[in-house]
């Protein structure tokens, strides 16, 4: 479903240039849930931004659903790939009601039947339809993140990119959102690419993961290896050790 080959991203110019991502390659099969972990500044979020079309300057080859990703993706591309952002508050327009936020992607792509689609997606994420006309500041963190997930799903994408979807949430709410994501993935056969610094979250949602450091991919491992801590690379082992209790 996703094939990334020798991806490189460089910010800035000449002497101030920073190589945020270098030579990253991995593949994600359809319906698989893949994790990308590493500390802040390792480039994992940049990889996501390339895949969803936000980061337009990069080198290498990226293929999503068999089609090569171009620097200026056509509008239809965005129906296949969507993203859930980290900060549930910052990712919703402060002056749009929940209804307006959800209707916007429909309007952009000229999809009709707005009322029914919005209702269905609200139900899918477990939000009371009475919240439909609330503003973001009238919702709790967990509710806002549900809206963000609903917004990502309303175009019925095949791939869902998740950038630290629960790190800004309370522990008790985190569990709800993780369960929701799990359920939605199995119900809709979605492909997940999850970025997180929290290995426990990754171990819960993903079947395979890659460890990144300073822009490079250090190691790819299955989640069982993550749990046992028997990673090949010392950096991976260090990360796993630091995450334990």
């Amino acid at each position: 479903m996703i094939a990334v080959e020798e991806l490189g991203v460089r910010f800035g110019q000449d002497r101030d240039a920073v190589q945020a991502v270098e030579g990253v390659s991995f593949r994600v099969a359809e319906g698989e849930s893949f994790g990308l972990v590493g500390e802040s500044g390792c480039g994992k979020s940049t990889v996501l931004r390339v895949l969803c079309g936000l980061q337009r300057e990069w080198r290498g080859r990226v293929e999503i659903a068999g089609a090569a990703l171009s620097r200026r993706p056509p509008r239809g591309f965005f129906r296949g790939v969507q993203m859930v952002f980290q900060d549930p508050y910052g990712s919703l327009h402060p002056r749009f009601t929940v209804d307006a936020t959800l209707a916007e992607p429909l309007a952009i792509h000229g999809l009709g039947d707005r009322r029914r689609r919005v209702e269905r997606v609200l139900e899918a994420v477990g939000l009371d339809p009475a919240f439909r006309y609330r503003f973001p500041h009238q919702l709790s963190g967990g509710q806002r993140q549900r809206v963000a997930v609903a917004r990502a799903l309303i175009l019925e994408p095949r791939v869902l990119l998740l950038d630290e979807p629960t790190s800004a949430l309370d522990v008790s709410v985190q569990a709800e959102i993780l369960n929701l994501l799990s359920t939605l993935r199995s119900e809709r056969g979605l492909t997940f690419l999850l970025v997180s610094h929290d290995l426990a979250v990754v171990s819960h949602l993903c079947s395979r993961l890659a460890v990144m450091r300073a822009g490079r991919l250090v190691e790819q491992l299955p989640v069982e290896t993550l749990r046992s801590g028997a990673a090949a690379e010392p950096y991976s082992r260090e990360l796993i050790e630091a995450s334990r209790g």
Partner: protein
Amino acid sequence: MSGVTLPTAGWRAWLLSERPGSALQARLGQGWLAWVAFRRNRLAMLGLGLVLLLLLVAALAPWISPYDPNLQNLRLRLQPPGADHWLGTDELGRDILSRILHGARITLYIVTLVVVIAAPVGLLVGTLAGYFGGWVDATLMRLTDIFLAFPRLILALAFVAALGPGIDNAVIAIAITAWPAYARVARAETLTLRGADFIAAVRIQGAGPLRIVGRHIMPLCLPSVIVRITLDMAGIILTAAGLGFLGLGAQPPAPEWGAMISTGRAYLLDQWWVATIPGIAICLVSLGFNLLGDGLRDLLDPKRRGG
């Protein structure tokens, strides 16, 4: 976790409902909360009162003026404020009160036209420059700088020299020098908003830049621009008065406040009311807009930070 009680009945309950049934109800509810917060600021309410007074007076001038503002009565010239003429008469025997009331119309006309022209232009230029960056930003900002460099009065003189004196030309001259400030405010807001996650979210939905600027960014820039405009209002009124004073704005016999001050100047020592009363009117209206602008800014800022 809340120790808060909400009203359960009546229109207040409808507005404050936690489950609004429509977008309209939700927006009205937010508007109501904003109004309640605004109401608490007494100075801002005073400002609002003064502005509303201006609007009311301008609307009702022909019906509440005791005399025709242009009616001359040379036998009663330069009368001090008294029972017949509450604010006295000017050098041609015209009732000053009536002239002030009709002058409110002119002031309102000028102020409204300037805002209607300058605000959309400023907003558009600012948001486009801020969002696109690069050469678009550079070009638009240099354009803005050029217009910012002109002192209002000098540009007005130039216009008048080219097109002839008159209230409409004065309006255009003021509007042309007013929009750059709004463009800057809008651009500053846009630069902050550009990197926000919710803008990134709508980009990855496939929205084009114009839709993003028009539907997502502009509404968020509006509050700062509105505050800037209300605070600018005093300056606009004073500039118009200045132009009137120089004879470049409204032409006689129009009861424009600045022009009234100008003609009243000759009688300042002995018949102070002829020049002073229009001056007080200008002062009050400027004060009203300033206080209103301050109140709006207090209202909009903390909200923006938290929500």
